[in-house]
């Protein structure tokens, strides 16, 4: 019977390793050189199985009384006969096989994502690999400089930068390794650009923007919270970018993971911010000690009279606090 079938030997990631065209049935599989498909697998018999017409227009695999048998998909027990659909995976020894008709129907092609030349450069080109980290290091040094109000010293500045640098290199290495293992491509450039872009460039830009916002407008506390929010957002966006480059999971799953990480981190950081803000010792008096702005544009200072008047509210609050603390110390409520 004239019928064109393809036998495909798959590798561990289910990609086709060898593809053999079958023109006539039955079709023998085994280690022997008499076989139509020769498998160099020590767990496969010389004449292990045969692919034949099942009489109803379909194909089936028949086991030739082999010692190890033939397995369908992930089955635990061997089967003597396996009906072969286009997607049926069959295991003989350690070899995975698939059989498809020449007229096997494929779905529509996945649409190619069209990147702009800039994005292509960012994700693929070796010069991005050098340029983006270099820019990040420069900005980081700038940040150190802005926080230095005495003499700028290169050694501590560089060592501070190097710590971040080493962390990022390890981080990129880990992602690239995973990428290499899962997809066979490391995509070092894309991971490097992502990590340095988010961690160094974006954080430095946020810092500078914050600085100027405080400087121009007012040293208001919400800005500090906004900063925490941006930090979490950039962190989870970075994670999302890495996952997308890796192409791991469905898109919804990736977004879900990023969102979860962002919310978790945000919660922890806000809690942490408030717990240090509310500390009860003078070393960390619970108030915001940043001093700005120089030109208080949006600021309407209070008159001294009003300010000292408003302190009235604090005394009963302190008394309540004290009574609460006393009640906790003496559960019986007895006072001395």
């Amino acid at each position, binding site marked *: 019977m004239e019928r064109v079938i393809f036998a495909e030997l798959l590798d561990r990631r289910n990609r086709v390793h060898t593809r053999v065209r079958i023109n006539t049935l039955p079709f023998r599989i085994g280690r022997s050189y008499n076989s139509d498909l020769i498998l160099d697998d020590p767990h496969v018999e010389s004449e292990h199985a045969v692919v034949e017409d099942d009489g109803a227009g379909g194909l089936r695999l028949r086991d030739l009384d082999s010692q190890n048998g033939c397995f369908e998909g992930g089955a635990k027990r061997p089967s003597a006969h396996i009906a072969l659909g286009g997607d049926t995976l069959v295991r003989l020894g350690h070899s995975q096989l698939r059989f498809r008709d020449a007229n096997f129907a494929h779905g529509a092609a996945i649409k190619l994502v069209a990147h702009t030349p800039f994005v292509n450069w960012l994700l693929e080109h070796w010069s991005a690999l050098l340029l983006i980290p270099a820019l990040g290091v420069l900005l980081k040094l700038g940040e150190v400089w*802005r*926080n*230095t*109000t*005495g*003499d700028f010293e290169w050694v501590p500045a560089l060592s501070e930068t190097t710590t971040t640098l080493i962390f990022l290199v390890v981080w990129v290495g880990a992602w690239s390794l995973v990428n290499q293992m899962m997809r066979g491509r490391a995509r070092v450039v894309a991971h490097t650009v992502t990590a340095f872009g988010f961690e160094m460039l974006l954080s430095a830009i946020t810092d500078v923007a914050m*600085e*100027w916002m405080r*400087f121009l407008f007012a*040293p208001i506390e919400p800005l500090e919270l906004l900063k925490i929010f941006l930090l979490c957002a950039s962190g989870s966006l970075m994670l999302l970018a890495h996952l997308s480059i890796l192409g791991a999971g469905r898109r919804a799953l990736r977004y879900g993971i990023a969102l979860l990480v962002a919310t978790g981190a945000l919660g922890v950081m806000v809690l942490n911010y408030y717990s240090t803000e*509310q500390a*009860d*010792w*003078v*070393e960390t*008096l*619970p*108030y*915001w*000690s*940043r*001093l*700005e*702005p*120089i*030109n*208080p544009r949006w*600021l*309407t*200072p*209070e*008159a*001294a009279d009003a*300010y*000292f008047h*408003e*302190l009235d509210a*604090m*005394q009963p*609050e*302190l*008394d309540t*606090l*004290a009574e609460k*603390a*006393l009640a906790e*110390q003496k559960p019986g409520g007895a006072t*001395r």
Partner: protein
Amino acid sequence: MQSPRGARRVCTLVIATALIAKLVSALPALAQGSEQIFERAATRIVQIRIVEADSGAKSAIGTGFVVGKEGELATNYHVIADLVHEPEHYRAEWVDAAGEGHPITLLGFDLVRDIAVLQAERAFAKPFKLHKGALRNGRRIYAVGNPFDLGMSIVEGAYNGFVEHSFYERIHFTGSLNPGMSGGPALLEDGSVVGINVASSGNQVSYLIPVDDLRRLLERIRAPGYELPEDRSLELREQLWRHQQRYFSAILEATPQMVQLGSYQAPGRLAPFFHCWGGFSEKKRHNARRHRCQTVDHIYLSDRIHIDVIQLRHRQIESDVLSPTRFYQLYSRFFERNWSELDGSDEDFSEFRCAVEFVETGGLVFKTAFCARRYLEFEGLYDVMFKAAHLGEPNTGFETALALTGISFENARALSRRYLEAIRWSE
């Protein structure tokens, strides 16, 4: 000078003083007088012991001396403070020559002046005569007490007048006082008491409570109708309240001395009993001027709480080279770190609460923070930290912190306000 936990200041140089005390006692010849003084006084000076009621172990020691015909003994408040704070857990006893302890009870105390009067069950020989009238500096006086539980000793030293710039009077005694001698008398050759041993800053710099304060306390105790309230903390509260009213009224009534720091004028010595220091530091990128004032009065409230009253710290910084953003980074750091030590734990104080605001006064805009905590056991008493920093100049700034301890809310507010409003810009 009593419990092992001890008063901070008192204990600072205990080791040094102990060594010096050894040297002094090794001097071959004390003047002839001291032998006789010691002999006459010895039977009327006893060791006072504070004992933990359950175990009978001593928790504090001091010295006491006879001040009344019916067995009244005087000592320091800080020796017997446990009797006031935790009367159910501690009792006091005086120790006879044989080392035997005999119970004594508390008659009265003056927290602020650090004196207490105790009542023994038996009468002693003659009470000490309390000296009246002024002494001349350099006058030889003799402090008696039981240092480190080693046995009754006499230390010869010199009267050097009252400590200067102190609101409450204290005699400056040049001689070595050591832990355990607290509450002992300082005597003249004729055996009359001029002061009560109280504290030492080491190197023979020691302090005595003037005997007039003891006389006043005795008068109060002996007045008809006097009775120490069952709840001693009521008396403590009352005394603290009176102290803070007197102390802070004196400051509020005084005219502060202004100091010039760069282009700013700020209040320095708020009242005559403040000690002030200044300084200037020149760094490569900025210059800073400092001014610091504090009071020296120190009240021992309990082994955990000491009231140091007032401290203020000004700092003016300027820079010609830093950009405004970098200058404000530096300025913020100064402001953040400018705080005086307010120690104490949450066992004794409530949490802090702060009111932070931008306040305009005298044409200057300040960022101010008024932070306060309450003494848990003493209603109406607070510790306050008031901080302010001037905003608006690109390359100069002035920031200050005022620490007030053991103060009423009203006084703290009035004082902080006066303080802030006194700061001026003046080229």
